[in-house]
């Protein structure tokens, strides 16, 4: 067994892991990235469409271009060791140190002995079983991300006549991608009365190809014995599929874009407390989980829409990791943050009144002309007007000592964030 003593282990070499590793190395610490694929970059490698980096680089890059910029940065920092083709199989919390066991064909079992761990494993896709589409179980049903991988990394076309379930960005992007590799996309079926993805993607992925979008519809059944032969779709009326208005669409492929879930297999090895609203870890103001010395950032903490925010969050997280490692034992004062009206979740789950705190949150409503309001034990401390909010667009704001000056020692100091 190889023993590797290191300051920081970063689990995952995608956008979050790369940014976190780079920041930790820049601050003078030794870093090991454990990545299960043969190359770094994570999901960005298969996101060959453009739209990345508008905030961070002020340019519109494709996923691979965004990834490679960070891979180059990491490559130029000798304090970072990259272990690719390596998978974490166990973890141990030994108080001051964390042990991570990973295996790879070349190195066998590696035991990493780290001062701190950054969880950056990203997310996985919800699948047919999770949403329970009735019907037969033929081949030809893929999650959109798997199909994207097969097309963009391996060069295969999963099918010729496609129906897509879910109008989130992955589904929309795949509608265009399948059209651009010679398949025909017959429909995108969305259960909500409004599309989940960016309007921009409705325009350039559906309208451009005249692909019909069926809002408030579900796939009521899948047909086909060996391979998909068709689906029956039906409108949702009074929360049930109205089968009298059902319609059959012949197809040989079904792509499911029905949600992403933080991938917490590794976090579970440390028995980290998970927030059911995000399916990611509860984290304090330092993005530290309930397991001391274990931090989380990126899609494994909560599913992001923009990779630029992942980079920001991961860089900030690494800063906290370094503070923790370098720490003289002095801990910040921290208090609870709660989601308020029309807010699904806010992260982090705690704040530190003596410094700047950046928050990310998701609203539960689609509305124009709203106010984001932050209260401290019921008293308003911050407010901002927003022209438009929707659940598929993450929001952020930063507040600091100026707004939080009233958070003194003998109060609950609960921060609540609402949108109305």
């Amino acid at each position, binding site marked *: *067994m190889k023993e590797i003593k290191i300051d920081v282990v970063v689990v995952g070499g995608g956008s979050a892991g790369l940014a976190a590793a780079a920041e930790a190395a820049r601050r003078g610490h030794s870093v090991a990235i454990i990545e*299960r694929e043969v190359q770094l970059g994570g999901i960005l490698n298969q996101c060959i469409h453009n739209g990345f980096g508008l905030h961070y680089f002020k340019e519109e890059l494709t996923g691979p271009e965004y990834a490679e910029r960070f891979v180059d940065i990491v490559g130029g920092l000798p304090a970072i060791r990259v272990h690719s*083709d390596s*998978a974490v*199989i*166990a973890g141990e919390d030994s108080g001051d140190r964390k042990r991570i*066991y990973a*295996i*790879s*064909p*070349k*190195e*066998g*079992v590696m035991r990493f002995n780290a001062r701190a761990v950054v969880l950056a494993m990203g997310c*996985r*896709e919800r*699948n*047919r*079983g*999770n949403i*329970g589409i*009735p*019907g*037969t*179980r*033929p*081949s*030809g049903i893929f*999650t959109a*991300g*798997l199909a994207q*991988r*097969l*097309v963009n*990394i*391996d*060069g*295969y*076309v*999963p*099918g*010729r006549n496609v129906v897509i379930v879910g109008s989130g960005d992955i589904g929309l992007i795949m509608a265009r991608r399948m*059209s*651009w*590799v*010679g*398949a*025909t996309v017959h429909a995108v079926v969305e259960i909500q009365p409004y599309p989940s993805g960016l309007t921009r993607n409705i325009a350039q992925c559906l309208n*451009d*190809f*005249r692909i019909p979008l069926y809002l408030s519809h579900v796939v*009521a*059944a899948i047909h086909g*014995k*060996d*391979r998909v032969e068709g689906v029956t779709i039906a409108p949702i009326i009074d929360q049930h599929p109205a089968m009298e208005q059902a319609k059959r669409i012949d197809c040989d492929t079904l792509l499911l874009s029905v949600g992403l879930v933080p991938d917490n*297999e590794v976090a579970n090895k440390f028995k980290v407390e998970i927030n059911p609203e995000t399916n990611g870890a509860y984290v304090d103001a330092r993005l530290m989980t309930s397991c001391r010395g274990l931090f989380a950032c990126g899609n494994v903490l909560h599913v992001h829409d923009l990779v630029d925010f992942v980079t920001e969050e991961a860089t900030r997280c690494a800063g906290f990791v370094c503070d923790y490692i370098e720490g003289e034992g002095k801990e910040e004062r921290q208090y609870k943050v709660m989601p308020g009206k029309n807010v699904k979740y806010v992260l982090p789950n705690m704040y530190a009144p003596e410094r700047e705190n950046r928050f990310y949150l998701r609203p539960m409503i689609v509305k124009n002309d709203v106010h984001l309001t932050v209260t401290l034990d019921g008293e308003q401390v911050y407010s901002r007007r927003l022209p438009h909010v929707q659940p598929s667009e993450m929001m952020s704001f930063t507040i600091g000592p100026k707004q939080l000056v009233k958070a003194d020692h003998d109060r609950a100091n609960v921060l609540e964030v609402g949108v109305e």
Partner: protein
Amino acid sequence: MQHYDVAVIGAGVTGAAIARRLSAYRLSVALLERECDVSFGVSKANSGIIHAGFHHGPQTLKARLEVRGNVMYDALQRELHFPFKRCGILVAAFSIEEMKTVERLYEQGVANGVIGIEMCSRARILALEPKLNPDVVGGLHAPSGGIIEPYRFVFSLVESAKKNGVELLTEFDVVEAHRDGAVYTIRSSSGSEIAADWVVNAAGLYADKVSRIFGAEDYEITPRKGEEFLMERDAKGYTSRVVFPVPTPNSKGMLVIPTVEGTTMVGPTAVEGDDKEDKATTAENFERVFYSARRLVPTVSERDIITSFAGLRPTLPGDDFYIELSKIAPSFVHVAGIQSPGLTASPAVAEYVKDLLKRAGLVLIEKPEYDPNIPELKRLRSLPMEEVDELITQDPAYGEIVCRCETVSEAEIKAAIKQGHTTLDGIKFYTRAGMGRCQGGFCTYKVLKILSRETGMSWEEITRRGGGSYITKEHIGDLPVKSLPGRVE
């Protein structure tokens, strides 16, 4: 044309167990299977329960073979290394009426010779299973009941049979047979033919069709569909014992099953139909199953569901096993109507069929070289860390994780392929790759790559489970791009 002493038609749990039993003797045995892999018919959707033997009366053949089969599993596990746990079975009653039915089951169990079966008070049954609905009034406990992974069991039976000389012929769909003197000529849909002196009909849903093909008795197998739902590992509803409700005349009821792998299953339903290929799941049954499951174990939650599937039971009127020598077709044995407790009974069914054949004149001479054991495949998931390191040094393929949810290594995928499992489902059942939380989202492309490399199959030839279940037919560039609008709707 190959000439065999015995042809066993159907490589589900019944046919596989029979073939293995016969492989202990100086006989040439062919195991014929219409699908591209074994256990792909009725046995594919089995719940994996080893029943204790109280559900059926002592006058039934089922009950006798069930109880006999039950005790054979410990030895079988030592020989074949399939996952098996004798965790015990509970029947939970919620009223005085239901307790009366439970008493009947208890008496039946005693009459069948079930060891250790006991009636339980409310306190006793809740102590045995604290997750039970506190409204339970009492029930029954059968400690001899258990759980196994059914396809691993069938795969291991076939592996053992093959090791001892049985020839497995897959994609052999029997369509025609005729007798010349003392020999049957059996033809498949693809035109291949074999000859056999004796025929064992273990063809599950199609036993009636096979019987007619051989000019034997005329009966009808009615498919009865059962839907089940699988919940992820360590779900809140994971019990320590299998929990049954009080049975109905039609079925044993919808259960909460803690699988041997740590996942939880609920179901199955029981709906008669007429389509032997209809394995569609339905929305209505989802509600019924969960209502029923939560009545037994309130912490069962749909949020934990990772997949659902349906199977078809081959039922005969009278609902008992039909294991008899044909009175019309010579040297032909029916092993039909094998629904629950078919899995439990299978080793005893194999003994029974062997004895039937012997009494009918098949000469059985023991093979001294018969070896009931098969080697145990090392599975990464269950090994201690030091052993993992050692293993990777010997075989780097153990260091490559393919299925991250179930911790399955490339070495195990290669072992599955070597055993003849060359479809995604076959590999899934042998290794568990694709059975976890992500249901193949992460590992599918890896399995495709390995399969292609190990067998030389192109990706276009690889299927989910044979037949027309292809994964992809095209490379980028095979289809011309005509994406501009103006295409016909």
